[in-house]
């Protein structure tokens, strides 16, 4: 089978109608000043979320990370960050018992706990994770590394 050349095609090729977005790609989407190739690699994916073609699942761990800087910057930044989460096709995955339990089992391959929780969310839901983190992408079957699509 031919390898997908863009992230949107790669997610859709998995047959999943959703993906787990790691924290960094969401930052690329909302703040726009990261390396342009990364921003433009992720845009078609988030455009598909905006139209409801795909769902974007965000771990509660990422939600916490994503609000750290806006919380320090003030209410306007927090409100703008919230607009991302108000998109109808953006869903939050709680870190429930099963997810946390599975994450603990992944720590051997994914040493950082936050990475392990996000990986566990992806594996439990059976949808690919989209990440900029090479180590995380290597450790999680089916993960899509943004760097492979720039």
């Amino acid at each position, binding site marked *: 089978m031919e390898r997908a050349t863009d992230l949107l095609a790669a997610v859709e090729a998995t047959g999943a109608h959703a993906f787990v977005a*790691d*924290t*960094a790609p969401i*930052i*690329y*989407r*909302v*703040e*726009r*000043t*990261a*390396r342009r190739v990364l921003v433009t690699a992720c*845009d078609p994916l*988030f*455009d*598909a979320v*905006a*139209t*409801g073609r795909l769902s974007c699942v965000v771990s509660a761990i990422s939600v916490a*990370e994503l609000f*750290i*800087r*806006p919380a320090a*910057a*003030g209410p*306007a*930044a927090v409100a*703008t*960050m919230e*607009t991302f989460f108000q*998109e*109808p096709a953006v869903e939050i995955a709680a870190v429930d018992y099963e997810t946390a339990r599975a994450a603990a089992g992944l720590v051997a391959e994914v*040493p*950082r*706990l*936050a*990475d392990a929780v996000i990986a566990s969310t992806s594996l439990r839901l059976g949808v690919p994770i989209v990440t*900029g*983190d090479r180590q995380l992408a290597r450790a999680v079957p089916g993960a899509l590394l943004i760097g492979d699509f720039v």
Partner: protein
Amino acid sequence: MPSWQDKLKEQPRPRPTRVSRNGQIVLAARARRECGIEPGDLVVSVPVAPGVLLVEKVGARDPASIREQYEREDNPLRGLWGPDPDAWVDEIRNQWSERQTS
């Protein structure tokens, strides 16, 4: 902005509409106009309390307009994570690891 409860108290109650067998209801034209809900819009219904349902417009947005909103110079999130967001995420996650091993 007044709460929906205050608005209900202020305004004369509209005429009731009956819920159909399959759960459909007609949104009163005046209410739709006031809320900016137009034919073709997507809405979600959110149970608020027994007998109270909130209908919220959520329609799929034009992705270009969303990107434009983030591209604006006055976007308060611009540059907030520094020039390399991946490095920022690494820093935050490494703090967890340091605590795990301490």
